[in-house]
């Protein structure tokens, strides 16, 4: 209904959330309404205690300046009720890191893997000198060195309660996957099936385990009994990396980044309480749909799968000109970032796999990326020894962080958003802050 009240046209809009559920009844708004005003209206409808920042989309296009501009560019009919999808953004805002606060020496060889604990209180790094070192973040000095491996420590992972750290070294490069019992310290199950070495293992939240390998397949296993459910085929070369949409929430567990304080605290509460909180956060992020899985490969493409449902991929994401080294979902699962050896990072829509933008600026292969906890910023480390912080919304470079003397092998953004840690071939670990 177009009513010419005043000088401004009006039209009917219907708010809808991402899953498609409508909110309230159709609303009559002027065409020149801005996103801020839309936010007020929507928040009033949502009836939450605190206003939540929202972003509005019509047919996948974001409403930036005013509703009228968006409608015009899309060429939509103003006579019908227009569905407007609202997306709640993170309430907190992570600020871009700008300076290197310390360069931690201590490793005798290149630093290969870096990981913050789920609350951001501890930092661990694995290196080619076979040690795993723990660093104290408040004083930015070494805390403890863990010896025991016999070869390069290729990967480290924290348990969600920050109590344990698992690390893997290079010695075992067979084609099987082992599930270890952390309490008893012994191997529970051995999953065989891949014909070449396994490149990535991910625990899903629904009791599934995903493994990718150099034999171009991804296998889905039931974690309870170790039975193989599915094999996802489609790649033409080694599958390098996997990413799950619920990765970030599984990693942080019961810790909510919005409640982070300046001094990171340990998680309090009994195991049951923590598990309950973690489950709540998980179901909130996951929503109604099953988990999504993205795989990046040497054949320059990525595949988007819904492994719990179907053997066929949802979408194939092409566009890279060299092998894809790492893929990561944003913490709110809406976006996907892929880092490749062709010196660019591409951002894709996390739900459909549609290409959004490319981030260019590096002069060497991009090795690793890490999202900030509010999904607005992305940090990337590359072989040209620099790190770059990108603003994902505008697609532009936010901060350039030079300083490493040699290639940057690993980056991580702490879940409380305060620090970025990066380790590289020059054997030192750098911490960056605002």
């Amino acid at each position: 209904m177009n009513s010419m009240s005043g000088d401004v046209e009006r039209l009917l809009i219907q708010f809808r959330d991402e899953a498609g559920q409508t909110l309230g009844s159709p609303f009559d708004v002027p065409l020149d309404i801005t996103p801020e005003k839309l936010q007020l209206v929507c928040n009033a409808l949502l009836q939450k205690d605190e206003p939540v920042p929202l972003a509005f989309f019509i047919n996948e296009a974001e409403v930036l300046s005013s509703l009228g501009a968006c409608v015009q560019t899309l060429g939509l009919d103003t006579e019908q009720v227009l569905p407007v999808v609202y997306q709640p953004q993170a309430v907190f805002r992570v600020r871009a890191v700008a300076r290197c606060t310390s360069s931690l020496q201590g490793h005798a060889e290149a630093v290969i893997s870096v990981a913050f604990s789920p609350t951001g209180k501890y930092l661990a790094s694995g290196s080619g000198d076979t040690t795993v070192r723990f660093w104290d973040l408040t004083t930015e000095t070494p805390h403890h060195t863990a010896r025991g491996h016999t070869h390069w420590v290729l990967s480290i992972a924290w348990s969600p309660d920050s109590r344990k750290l698992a690390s893997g070294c290079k010695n075992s490069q067979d084609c099987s996957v082992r599930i270890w019992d952390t309490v008893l310290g012994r191997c529970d199950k051995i999953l065989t099936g891949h014909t070449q070495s396994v490149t990535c293992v991910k625990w899903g939240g629904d009791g599934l385990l995903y493994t990718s390998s150099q034999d171009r397949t991804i296998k889905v296993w039931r974690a309870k009994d170790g039975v193989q459910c599915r094999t996802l085929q489609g790649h033409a070369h080694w599958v390098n990396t996997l990413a799950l949409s619920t990765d970030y929430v599984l990693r942080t567990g019961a810790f909510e980044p919005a409640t982070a304080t300046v001094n990171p605290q340990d998680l309090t509460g009994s195991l049951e309480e923590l598990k309950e909180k973690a489950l709540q956060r998980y179901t909130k992020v996951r929503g109604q749909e099953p988990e999504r899985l993205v795989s990046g490969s040497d054949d320059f493409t990525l595949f988007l799968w819904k492994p719990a449902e179907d053997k066929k991929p949802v979408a194939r994401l092409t566009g890279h000109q060299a092998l894809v080294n790492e893929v990561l979902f944003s913490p709110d699962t809406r976006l996907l970032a892929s880092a490749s050896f062709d010196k660019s990072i591409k951002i894709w829509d996390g739900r459909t796999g549609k290409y959004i933008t490319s981030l260019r600026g590096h002069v060497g292969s991009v090795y690793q990326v890490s999202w900030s906890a509010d999904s607005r910023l992305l940090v990337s480390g590359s072989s040209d020894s620099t790190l770059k912080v990108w603003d994902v919304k505008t697609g532009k470079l936010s901060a350039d962080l030079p300083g490493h003397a040699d290639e940057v092998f690993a980056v991580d953004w702490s879940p409380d958003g305060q620090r970025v840690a990066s380790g590289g071939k020059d054997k030192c670990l750098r911490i960056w802050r605002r």
Partner: protein
Amino acid sequence: MNLLTSTSCDFSEPQNEHIELHRKRHGYRLDHHERKRKKEGREAHERSHKARKMIGLKAKLYHKQRHAEKIQMKKTIKMHEQRKTKQKNDEKTPQGAVPAYLLDREGQSRAKVLSNMIKQKRKEKAGKWEVPLPKVRAQGETEVLKVIRTGKRQKKAWKRMITLQFFHCFVPLGFSFHFLYCFSLYNGLRFKKAHVTHPELKATFCLPILGVKKNPSSPLYTSLGVITKGTVLEVNVSELGLVTQGGKVIWGKYAQVTNNPENDGCINAVLLV
């Protein structure tokens, strides 16, 4: 009937195939293989007998040769032994730790991304360069520009002739009024690219030349942009993707010419890191 014995002693092999031909036609002696085996068995004893009994210059030469042979034999035996036994791994883990995503990849692409940790040599004193080819024959100006006498009585000596027969030079874009531009049209070849080798990685790239920094043969050559052996050039290294500590991209570096371009027709240089 085979009247010839098989040749297994110090005599050199027969020069034609008559022996093989005979063997093919008539076969071997009945006891041939046995005799051969026994003779070879005796060889060690005969050898040692000779070594003990030999005297004089002959002995010296023989012993020297034998000593060298024995050393070689010992080395090969040791090598074989090492292969058979499984040694306990050294405590040191191999160098060159790489993260998991780089494990099975060759270092080929690494050659394109040069390491910034190669230390820069400090310039000790002003004007003194440490270059791979420090000594290049310097040519004075009189050598380069030969005086031609003209005039009825051959007294006028203002004309000069350049004594380069065939040279390579770099003329920057848009430099058309320089006399070398005209000269190079006749005698010289203009070159835009050089094959530059990185000394530590041993990888060679074809990089565009930005300019001639110094030609040690003569300052005249430097100003004219003539490229001979030992010339220091500035090359465009942006395709290598080097970055300084401060985050700036390096796009020019010095390289020194290592061949004689006038003989080879191309410019080979080594990068000065």
